[in-house]
């Protein structure tokens, strides 16, 4: 095949700063949790709680997703990133905005600083959306995986728009409903629309590739796409109009169907895999997929589909957010870092040396022992944090926060080990 582009990957200087910022943010999240006098035991709509949530979602998860997506665009869209310069501008703009935003929340400066911080974040995210959209327009094929990614980009813009409107409402007070109502929509569009759509698009590409499994039922992905979008549409139209519980349950049911179809696809890939032994990166990924069931179960409690005392609803909401951000998204990111970052650095450092000298394997760029210790520490952290939220035992949350700090440090050590890898050392 003539004219095939296999060298579309962006320069590592576009991607690597995202991983560094994210690693430092993860440590920051653990420190803020320790400094927040157990924010997880308080009401979920508190300045400190929202600051921690946004540092986790934007500074940690989204930042690393942005970096990884720039690398994956050539694989999924089969074309190069539209603009590397724009990606760099987006990184600095988003990094500054996220810190500004978290500071505004942490200091409860809702009416004074928050609107400006939210606006800066909105503009930064919009730059990312534009860059991905223009890359997609160059794509020669329109695969279902690409559609998932494009929908996630759309929902990211919607999430941020709603968030910015909420922030401006603190200053100008123009929305008809209370903040909590819009916050729920903002969070759901972010969790399902942004994270889930993106993870399905990227996961459906990468996981079968890493498992080495073929001949999968791609109709399940198409059905997942339809049901998740139906769920989002019903949820949004209900949220901005009649606000009926029955419609909320309909939206939830559509979303569950979408998730079930996606999980079936991944499970089929897992069962048909040729690579039987899972490395640490894939162990994390498999755990993340299994943990995706948790937020579904917890959301039934939040929706009061099963009867529950009001006292438990606040805990259920926090547990729901925790299970999405830490149980699913963070677990997957921690694992996929070990699949993507060593590869990016290896490609940059050894591309011109292959065949001329002996080169290490990408997995040899980090410490397997540290990665495994990090895996078990994180698993324990998840269990303790979840039990702590349910039982309201602050000691468990404190231990879990220290474990998260340990995970952040171990993760950062490995990330830096990969980034500072020297070709001389390998030779």
């Amino acid at each position, binding site marked *: 095949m003539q004219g095939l*582009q296999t060298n*579309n990957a962006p320069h590592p200087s576009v991607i690597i700063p995202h991983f560094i910022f994210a690693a430092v943010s993860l440590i920051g999240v653990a420190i803020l949790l320790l400094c927040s006098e157990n924010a997880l035991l308080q009401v979920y709509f508190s300045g400190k709680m929202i600051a921690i949530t946004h540092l986790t979602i934007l500074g940690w998860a989204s930042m690393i997703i942005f970096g990884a997506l720039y690398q994956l665009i050539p*694989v999924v869209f089969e074309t190069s990133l539209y603009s590397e310069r724009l990606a760099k501008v987006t990184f600095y703009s988003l990094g500054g905005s996220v810190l500004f935003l978290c500071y505004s929340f942490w200091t409860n400066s809702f009416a004074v600083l928050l609107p400006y911080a939210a606006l800066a974040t909105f503009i930064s995210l919009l730059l990312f959306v534009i860059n991905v959209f223009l890359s997609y327009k160059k794509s020669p094929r329109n695969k279902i995986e690409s559609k998932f990614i494009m929908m996630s980009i759309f929902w990211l813009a919607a999430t941020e728009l709603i968030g910015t409107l909420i922030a401006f409402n603190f200053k100008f007070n123009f929305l008809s409903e209370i903040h909590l109502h819009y916050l729920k929509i903002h969070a759901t569009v972010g969790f399902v629309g942004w994270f889930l759509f993106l993870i399905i698009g990227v996961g459906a590409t990468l996981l079968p590739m890493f498992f080495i499994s073929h001949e999968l039922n791609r109709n399940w992905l198409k059905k997942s796409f339809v049901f998740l979008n139906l769920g989002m549409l019903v949820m949004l139209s209900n949220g901005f109009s009649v606000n009926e519980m029955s419609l909320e349950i309909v939206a939830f049911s559509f979303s569950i169907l979408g998730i079930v179809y996606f999980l079936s696809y991944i499970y089929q890939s897992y069962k048909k895999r040729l690579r039987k032994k899972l490395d640490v990166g894939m162990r994390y990924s498999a755990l993340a997929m299994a943990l995706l069931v948790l937020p579904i179960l917890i959301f039934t409690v939040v929706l009061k589909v099963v009867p529950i005392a009001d006292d438990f609803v606040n805990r259920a909401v926090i547990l729901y957010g925790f299970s999405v951000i830490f149980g699913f998204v963070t677990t997957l990111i921690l694992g996929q870092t070990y699949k993507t970052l060593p*590869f990016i650095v290896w490609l940059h450092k050894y*591309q011109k040396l292959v*065949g001329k000298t002996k080169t290490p*394997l*990408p997995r040899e760029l980090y410490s397997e022992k540290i990665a495994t210790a990090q895996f078990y520490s994180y698993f324990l952290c998840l269990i303790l944090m979840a039990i702590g939220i349910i039982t309201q035992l602050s000691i468990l949350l404190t231990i879990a926060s220290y474990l998260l700090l340990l995970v952040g440090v171990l993760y950062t050590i490995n990330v830096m080990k990969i980034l500072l890898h020297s070709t001389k050392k390998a030779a």
Partner: protein
Amino acid sequence: MTAEDIMLFEIELLELLKEVIDPEIEINIVDMGLIYNLTYDGEGIVNIDLTFSTPSCPLGDTIMTNIRETINQKHPDFIVSIDLVFEPKWTPALISDEGRKMLG
């Protein structure tokens, strides 16, 4: 070189290309089934029909460089011509028994 010599030399080249490893999957490209055809013309020109597990394989250029360097390390005067082919599409069925053992 006789036809038989050429055939034996082609087998030798395929053995040599087992040194080219896909760094992610950790299997060489021969046992991965990525080489659809390899011919030697008897006068220093090697033609290879190569495929990737996916058309947008980020390792594509690296694998092609590795093939050329590996052959030229041993036969510096050889010209290595690589044609990328995506029909038939690569499937895991093309992985050799040896490759499957390596996957565990």
